[in-house]
């Protein structure tokens, strides 16, 4: 899903990037977060978790807008997003 | 819901109506059922009386729904009941098993009629007695009572509710079409709430509560929905937390407890009534409507000089094994009249262990045996 126009105020307003947390034990490597992220923040990685599932990794975190879609589409509740202002470790 | 503190009264009513009144006296405030001869009158009476006492009557779309609605209402905290006959009883079996597995207090009344299948819808039989014990798949135990008169069905329905709340198990009232449809005087006493058994509620906070951790009597305290306990109840084999566990060890632990819960408490559960037993050579072992005919036969036998006695089985399941074993050393024979081709006689024979003869006096259903049939069997047995 690509954005087809640039918001008029994009120069003045900066959206806060999100920070991605992956629970490697829960992930089953289905790839939804990678496939359906509107900003292509994630990609499939090379690491296997203890159960043998291929894990996703962050490709470019600066693109993340903390829309939270990966979080809600994940069937395993394995991926979480937070924004710096509510992220206590800055 | 309003309390029904009706004063003591005497009514001339049928067994079906007496059963409904017994339920209401016992505190039943939910009935879900489906019309079926000869139990329909129970539903009709409940539909009239429950709104009067602040309860809920709902007629479900079939017996499967009825049994499940009863289980759901019990888990919401209500005393719940349904009533049916043979064909509906068969439909309820899977969910009777769910009730036993979830350990749900509830009462299921079967006003038996002749079967199998559609059979004789308006006529008596006692052909579901084994099904009451073994009808659902898997290993479990339930309690079943058998009344022989409208007064007894009133009394035993109250007993059924008390037992179901005490042991967290579905309790069956195995009556029959003659008791259901005959009208006799029924004395309805004033029932105080203190005299009724209420299920044991959890004594600990929700974080510490284990839904299937039993007390010493093997019965776990029961949380109901809506109290903040956030428990999980499943028909899958489960552990004390109620979580499904797919191991042989969990199965062993659970099944033993579900069965022992009844078996090890059977002395407190089993009831029977003995007449002229002390010196009896021949004991007629009867239940339900057949008891009344057997009583005639025993009296006639006594008049002929035969030392006959009557053992009325009130609790059919768990079966009064110990008493039969004791009596089998004393008597020459047990006569078991039943309106079927031999069901409870198998239990009597098993428990008699060959020490006394066991003689079946069968009637295939559609009517009740005559006292002479039983008397002839008694006479035969003395030879």
């Amino acid at each position, binding site marked *: 899903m690509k954005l087809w126009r640039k918001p008029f105020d994009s120069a003045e307003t900066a959206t806060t990037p999100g920070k991605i947390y*992956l*629970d490697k*034990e*829960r992930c*089953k*490597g*289905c*790839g*939804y977060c990678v*496939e*359906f992220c509107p900003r292509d923040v994630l990609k499939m990685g090379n690491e296997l978790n203890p159960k043998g*599932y291929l894990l996703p990794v962050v490709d470019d975190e600066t693109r993340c807008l903390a829309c*939270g*879609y990966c979080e*809600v*589409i*994940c*069937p*395993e*509740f394995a991926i*979480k997003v*937070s924004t710096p202002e*509510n*992220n206590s470790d800055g | 819901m309003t309390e029904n503190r009706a004063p003591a009264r005497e009514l001339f009513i049928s067994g079906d109506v007496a059963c409904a009144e017994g339920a209401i006296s016992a505190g039943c405030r*939910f009935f*879900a059922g489906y019309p079926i001869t000869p139990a329909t009158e129970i539903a009709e009476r409940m539909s009239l009386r429950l*709104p*009067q006492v602040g309860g*809920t009557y*709902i007629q*479900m*779309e*079939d017996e499967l*729904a*009825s049994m*499940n*609605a*009863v*289980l*759901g*209402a*019990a*888990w*919401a*905290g*209500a005393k*719940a009941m349904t009533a049916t006959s043979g064909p509906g009883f068969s439909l309820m079996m899977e*969910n009777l098993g*769910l009730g036993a597995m*979830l350990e749900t207090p509830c009462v299921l009344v079967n006003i038996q009629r002749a079967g199998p299948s559609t059979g004789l819808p308006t006529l008596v039989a006692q052909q579901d007695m084994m099904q009451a014990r073994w009808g659902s798949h898997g290993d479990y135990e339930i309690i079943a009572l058998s009344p022989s008169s409208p007064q007894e069905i009133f009394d035993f329905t109250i007993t059924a509710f008390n037992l179901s709340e005490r042991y967290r198990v579905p309790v069956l009232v195995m009556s029959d079409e003659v008791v259901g449809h005959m009208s006799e005087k029924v004395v309805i006493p004033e029932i105080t709430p203190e005299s009724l058994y209420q299920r044991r509620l959890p004594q600990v906070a929700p974080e510490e509560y284990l839904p299937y951790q039993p007390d010493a009597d093997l019965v776990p305290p029961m949380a109901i*929905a*809506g109290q903040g*306990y*956030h*428990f*999980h*109840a*499943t*028909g899958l084999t489960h552990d004390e937390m109620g979580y*499904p566990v797919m191991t042989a060890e969990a199965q062993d632990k659970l099944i033993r407890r579900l069965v022992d819960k009844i078996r090890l408490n059977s002395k407190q559960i089993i009831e029977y009534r003995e007449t002229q037993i002390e010196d009896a050579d021949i004991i007629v072992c009867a239940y339900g409507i057949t008891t009344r005919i057997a009583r005639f036969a025993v009296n006639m036998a006594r008049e002929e000089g035969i030392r006959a006695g009557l053992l009325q089985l009130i609790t059919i399941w768990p079966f009064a094994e110990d008493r039969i074993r004791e009596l089998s050393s004393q008597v020459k024979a047990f006569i078991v009249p039943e309106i079927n081709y031999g069901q409870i006689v198998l239990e009597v024979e098993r428990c008699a262990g060959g020490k006394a003869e066991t003689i079946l006096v069968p009637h295939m259903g559609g009517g009740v045996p005559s006292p002479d049939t039983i008397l002839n069997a008694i006479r035969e047995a003395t030879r």
Partner: protein
Amino acid sequence: MITTPNVENQTIEKFLRQDRLPHIFCPGCGVGPAMGSLLRGIDRSEIDPDKIAVVSGIGCSGRVAGYVKLDSFHTTHGRAIPFATGLKLGNPELNVVVFSGDGDLAAIGGNHLIHAARRNINMTVICVNNFNYGMTGGQVGPTSPFEARTSTTTYGNFETPFNLPYLVSASGATYVARWTTIHIRQLDKAISEALVKPGFSFIEVIAPCPVVYGRMNKKPEGKDELRYYQEKSVTRNGADPKDVDIELNGPIIVGKFVDIERPTLWERLQQVTEKAQARIKTKK
């Protein structure tokens, strides 16, 4: 488990039985997102969680009752709705949610589905529709599209499926919606609306079943199936339920179709109780 300060995901974690995760659903299964949506919907509705009871039947969707930290019941196949009826009538303060699958609710449970809708009993039914009986290996079900391949229709399904929104709204449901697990935010909102709305609410959730249904119908991976649902979905709020049949390779109409008012079962039962008690008083 990873927690972040983000309130939304804390809610989810709070309502999950942490000691039972990861759950048993296949990679890419739609039941997980539907379950998450249920929990966010509950949070959004602001209903007291102590008063919520979740009832499920048998099947993959049915396992959800075991993963949510609420009063929950995992009952027999097809019988979640009558069990829930008993719960609701036994304690009308309970907010009862039935969460089950297409086979459980529309085949063996079909009779109970239409009667509960007819009665307009106050409950919310979430039907996860993955077009087959997933747990037993992908057999054909009452919602499998015509010519779909399943483990018992090797030559293609020869039956016409139910149009569930049509069935349920014709039976009398007062809230009927369909979303897919791609429309997860809309689903959250629909669930929160359905939970507070009195009467019988029915939400069909089209969900991927990658390991069986998807694989047998040329969608080898979950993301293929979910991409397909995304492409085929057409949002049409207020559509007439009779127009929302699903065919293989046809459009999948999603949206909120029905949102009406009708007297509920409990309202009617209360009128009965009043009548009964009034008659006793007049007799005295």
